[in-house]
């Protein structure tokens, strides 16, 4: 770490919501990000859009991983927004050793990094691999499954913004039903993405029986840091799937990134949980349940569901049923709290 980054002034990220602010917590309980000792793994000056959830998530995740690894961390990156907005040469936001190879091979490259480090006796250095939803659930899926299956000592973090953002917002297998993307336009009888498709990567990761799988959201950065920290305390293949709104791709206001992420959790569409060796071991309870409408309305990618005088209640209800199913499946709402 260079001197100027160590001296960089601590900024507090304003959450503007019902979360407990860092300042009310004891030093030890504050976020890694709130500490003077944070590593600035991705330092300021990068080119992400204003309000980019991926930039926020990656920054918190990597600084937490850096603290857990005592600063001995190597990061591998798939092609995608994170890779592009943190570079190009000669500029780089990465304060840690960082490698980008191609789009679909980050998990395999990370396997190689981990093996190479072991063979060179650098057993204290840890490895994080990261990619967007497209790089993870589609093109890198084979390599990721291989890395999981071999239980390689890699923490893989997926930043899920539910589409191929870097190439201009195309559908991926993480794009939700009805969402408008450049390849699922809001046209025709059933505008946007169709129902009944897509894959649930955290559950697929769990099916590999790897030691640790978690979902996290930039709406709860404390929780994200805690999960990264837990993951870093474990050896073997670990997977964290982080929900990261993309103002550009979702057609949302940049100041709403954290709010939208919170609404996704509170409506049940994005369940927060942890799993060990294939079994769910903890869930993030919903404190204040909201209808999916609240979440959907803030995003232009769902605007066709809310046309004036022609609200598409049928499809909104179908999305509500998906949220309800998650709430039931993971027990996200305690019976007495259910409103």
């Amino acid at each position: 770490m260079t001197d100027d980054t160590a001296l960089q002034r601590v900024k507090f990220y304003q959450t503007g919501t019902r979360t407990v602010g860092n300042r009310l917590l004891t030093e030890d309980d504050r976020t890694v990000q709130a500490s003077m000792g944070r590593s600035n793994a991705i330092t300021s000056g990068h080119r992400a859009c204003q309000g980019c959830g991926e930039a926020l998530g990656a920054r918190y995740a990597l600084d937490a991983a850096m603290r857990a690894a005592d600063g001995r961390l190597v990061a591998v990156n798939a092609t995608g927004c994170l890779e592009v907005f943190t570079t190009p040469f000669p500029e780089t936001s990465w304060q840690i050793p960082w490698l980008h190879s191609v789009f679909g091979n980050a998990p395999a490259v990370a396997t190689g990094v981990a093996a190479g480090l072991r063979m060179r006796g650098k057993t204290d250095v840890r490895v994080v691999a990261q990619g967007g939803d497209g790089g993870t659930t589609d093109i890198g899926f084979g390599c990721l499954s291989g890395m999981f299956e071999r239980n390689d000592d890699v923490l893989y973090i997926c930043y899920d913004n539910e589409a191929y953002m870097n190439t201009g917002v195309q559908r991926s297998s993480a794009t939700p039903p009805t969402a408008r993307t450049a390849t699922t336009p809001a046209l025709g009888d059933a505008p946007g993405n169709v129902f009944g498709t897509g894959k649930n990567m955290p559950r697929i990761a769990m099916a590999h029986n790897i030691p640790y799988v978690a979902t996290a959201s930039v709406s709860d950065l404390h929780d994200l840091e805690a999960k990264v920290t837990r993951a870093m305390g474990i050896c073997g293949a670990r997977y964290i799937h982080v929900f990261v709104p993309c103002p550009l791709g979702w057609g949302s206001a940049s100041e709403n990134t954290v709010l939208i992420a919170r609404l996704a959790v509170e409506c049940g569409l994005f369940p927060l949980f942890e799993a060990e060796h294939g079994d769910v071991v903890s869930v993030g309870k919903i404190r204040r349940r909201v209808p999916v409408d609240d979440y959907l309305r803030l995003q232009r990618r769902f605007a066709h569901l809310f046309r004036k005088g022609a609200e598409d209640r049928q499809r909104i209800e179908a999305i509500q049923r998906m949220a309800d199913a998650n709430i039931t499946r993971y027990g996200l709402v305690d019976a007495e709290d259910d409103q």
Partner: protein
Amino acid sequence: MMKQIEGSQGIAEAVALCRPQVVCAYPITPQTHIVEGVGAMVKAGALQHCEFINVESEFAALSVAIGASAVGARAYTATASQGLLFMAEAVYNAAGLGLPIVMTVGNRAIGAPINIWNDHSDSMALKDAGWIQLYAETNQEAADLHIQAFRLAEELSCPVMVCVDGFILTHAFERIEIPTQPQVDAYLPPFAPVQQLDVDNPYSIGAMVGPEAFTEVRYLGHQKQIEALDVIPRIAAEFEAAFGRASGGLVRPYRVEGAETVVVALGSVNGTIKDVIDAVRDAGAAIGSITISSFRPFPLAELHGLLAGAARVVCVEKSLAPGLGGVLASNVRMALRGMAVPVYTVIAGLGGRPITRASLADVFHLAADDKLDDVTFLDLNHAVIAQQLALADRDRHSGPIAENLLKALNPGLVRAKPQDERPKP
């Protein structure tokens, strides 16, 4: 120690002597025995400080090697055919990043039609990916080239592909001299990377480069190959001094003095070519040959010098550039700039078709009289082709070509469907 072993085992033992630290394996014939051999040595403890990783695809195999190499570990993998194409994106990437990975290609045809036998379509498809490409002529050379390849790769920070004819070399049992560990250790110093992911000196590798420097990056990749034209003969000479036998280098001429016809080829077919040359030389023909050991970098100057007195060149090549002819011939023509020397292409051995001495003698004879076509397909079955063309003319729905050809070759093996049973188009 002299051993009577399979070519693949010889390669595996040579690779192990190079002390690789990460070896990735994915099965594909005819390369599989090589990684199996290395894997067995790791498992038995004969090869220590090496991680042998069974991956889920060739794309992963080379990607794992990329990651390992980027932290300064010596990395090796092997593949062939469909596997090489499956990892193509990573092949370019490894070269672009300047990672000195060594990879064996057990040369095999590419489908469709799927075919497991030898030709050079696979490595030729990736000849311009930025890797150094060496072609082995014998099993001894196949083993030796791997030891040289690690030296070369690490000295230049450039990946090296060692191309070994599938089955013909990989599966043949021959006498191979396997050097001792101290010998190899003395020849191949530990890997000292020029770049590595290091927590004590962090930097980014593989970030985007725009038009302002991309050409320069590529130029330096080209320069590295040009530099290899000096390094390859040097390390081959050092190899000869250390191990007592000649292997590798850029080119190997055979009886080219006074030769009017010079045959040029890559790989194991040179053995057959030399036999034919011996026979027809004795009968009075002025013919010689050149084995190209390094196809990338391409030894333009050496060929230019060796072919200066030739009246014609015949390239015997195991790959086809459809719509053009021969890849090797096009490259050889570059070496003949300013010389009015015809270069004939003989496409031979595709999909494992045997290249016989008799057939080679025939084309060399035609060449000597300048009666050879520009592009000749050795032992092409004209009758079967005529049959297929006639069928296609008669019937719009003539069906899969490959099946038709095999039916024509095996009349009576498959009962022909009566006309009215055929599905209507």
